[in-house]
């Protein structure tokens, strides 16, 4: 094992897959000359050449559309979108093409394509640059949607996504690129399955069901709660579609209480999807209503103090846990 950043982990994944399979190409805005908006693709063009690592014009629809076409024609494109906010300009190709062609053409074609893009707020980037919209895409049959929270998962899931025969949206987080974590040594080939979550911390009193950057917030909240004798289990769902529901249900079976934690908006989103499924299939295991910690239901404000109030913090999770974990549980 070595310790590397989330950013390096993603870069290594692309590098290793490009070495392994010459059909893998990487396209996107400013991925070469600029080194990638978040420096993820830095050095790839020098190593693999500018045929396989291509800067594109500023045109999201054709980036994704061309990736879809190239994938249907036998390539393994990895398309980078600068941020998820701009994926909306390509959403037609994602939803109406990538997700549909295999089905509507009777299984004659498929789309082994990856779209990488960061989501998330918290850096004062304002209303149009701070969104977390995975639920929009997770709603769509025909797509896989995954959100790694650690360098290990970032590398393993991206490698799995590139090898996957179906379209995968790998959603990164703008505030995670610099975090460090353990990853297997170079040359050790590994992948992380795109349909399994992972328990990050065991606990008996409450399940924190979460993903992406909020995994780290939940870990911090769990440490705090432990000081007061409340043992929280942190469940990193990491695969939004398909969802590893068994993992969440098993955890709730043990703790009988759940808090769903996410950065995005509450209504009609990912967390409500999780909560509905837990109610539907784990109702008998619940001793208290599921709590839901989310971003405030407004566009992201710019001002520092307002932005701070708009996104969930550790204490919001602690408060939610205390609403449903009775004092007597604390031993």
């Amino acid at each position, binding site marked *: 094992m070595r310790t590397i950043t989330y950013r390096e982990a993603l870069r290594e994944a692309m590098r290793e897959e490009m070495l392994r399979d010459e059909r893998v190409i990487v396209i996107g805005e400013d991925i070469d000359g600029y080194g990638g908006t978040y420096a993820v693709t830095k050095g790839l063009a020098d190593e693999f050449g500018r045929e396989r690592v291509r800067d594109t014009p500023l045109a999201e629809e054709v980036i994704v559309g061309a990736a879809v076409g190239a994938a249907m024609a036998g390539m393994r494109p990895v398309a980078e979108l600068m941020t998820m906010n701009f994926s909306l300009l390509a959403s037609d190709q994602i939803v109406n093409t990538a997700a549909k062609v295999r089905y509507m053409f009777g299984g004659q074609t498929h789309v082994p394509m990856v779209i990488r893009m960061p989501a998330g707020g918290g850096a004062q980037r304002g209303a149009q640059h701070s969104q977390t919209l995975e639920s929009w895409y997770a709603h769509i049959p025909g797509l896989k949607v995954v959100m790694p929270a650690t360098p290990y998962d970032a590398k393993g899931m991206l490698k799995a996504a590139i090898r996957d025969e179906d379209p995968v949206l790998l959603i990164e987080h703008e505030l995670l690129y610099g975090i460090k974590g353990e990853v297997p040594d170079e040359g050790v080939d590994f992948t992380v399955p795109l349909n399994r979550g992972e328990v990050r911390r065991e606990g008996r009193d409450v399940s924190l069901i979460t993903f992406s950057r909020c995994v780290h917030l939940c870990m911090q909240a769990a440490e705090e709660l432990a000081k007061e004798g409340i043992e929280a289990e942190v469940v990193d769902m990491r695969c939004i579609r398909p969802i590893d529901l068994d993992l969440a249900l098993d955890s709730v079976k043990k703790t009988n209480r759940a808090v769903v934690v996410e950065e995005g908006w509450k209504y009609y989103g990912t967390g409500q999807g999780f909560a509905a499924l837990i109610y539907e299939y784990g109702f008998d295991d619940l001793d208290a209503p599921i709590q839901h910690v989310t971003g405030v239901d407004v566009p992201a404000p710019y001002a*520092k103090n*307002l932005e701070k109030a708009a996104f969930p913090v550790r204490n919001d999770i602690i408060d939610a846990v205390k609403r449903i974990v009775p004092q007597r549980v604390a031993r």
Partner: protein
Amino acid sequence: MAISKSDVMLAGLSREQLLDLHATMLLIRRFEEKAGEEYTLGKIGGFLHLYIGQEAVATGAIKPLRPQDVVISSYREHGHALVKGSDPNAVMAELFGRSTGVSKGKGGSMHIFDDQHNFHGGYAIVGAQMPIACGYGLAQKFAGKGDITMTFFGDGAVDEGAFHEAMNLAELWSLPVVFICENNLYSMGNALAKAWSVSSLEPRAAAYGMAYERVDGMDVLAVRDTAIRAIDRARNQSKPTLIEAMTYRFRGHSMADPATYRPKDEVELWRTQRDPIVLFEQKLREAGIDQETLTKADDRAIQIADAAAAFADSSPFPDLSELTQDVMIDPTGAIAWRRPRK
């Protein structure tokens, strides 16, 4: 007011008009330099895209507009707002995210909006402003008062589908919109040659049958002339124009960008040989305006920028109640669901 012959100093403009153009460019330059400093000090957060180097475009193009005309721009829009008449204090306060900002501190550097001066937005999704400008043009056409819309965007933005859709619609519907592409040769780190299949916008304008003019965007008088023709076409014939203003940003794409992708001598050349303010001052001196007047104007611009930063810094942060204000007109519609009162 008609200008008597003896007042004319340069390009048919009076001393007063010339000095106004000069002061406006300086205001933008000093304002932006100050903003850059404040960003470095941590007073401004998020993204900050400076307009330094491109001052002649906003100044030359917006000055001939009437107050009722609308300007719509991108995230690199402080300069456009200042020329349109926005109070430097309120623009700087927006950059600081304070309650006295033009957008109440809720928008930030990329989202300036000043209803009072008909500066109708900085948009941070590249290309989004062009279709919006078409809508404004359509409304102005319905209103029949002869008002027009001017929209600014970069050389990167014309590669988005939105540009092409807007071009076609504006020409098809004869909308009174002036489209100004500020071609600064780069879209973030991507040089024009890596982005455009053609080297000018002329064939793209031709594809939609739209009037096109290319202008030296470092020459404020040339920009002004070109803009006046386009404004006239919009106001009197309700016809759009595409202007390509050749310019250069002297700084990185945003404060976060060290801009290593541009050849050093290229940057140096533009900065030392093509600075729009220096070039204009040369002309002004040749027309007989003394250096002292020019220096005084600069001092004044520095004062305004400093005062704006001081104003912003002493302004309060928005009240926390602002977090949930302004989402929609109907406050009950703004929140998807509210727990019924027990």
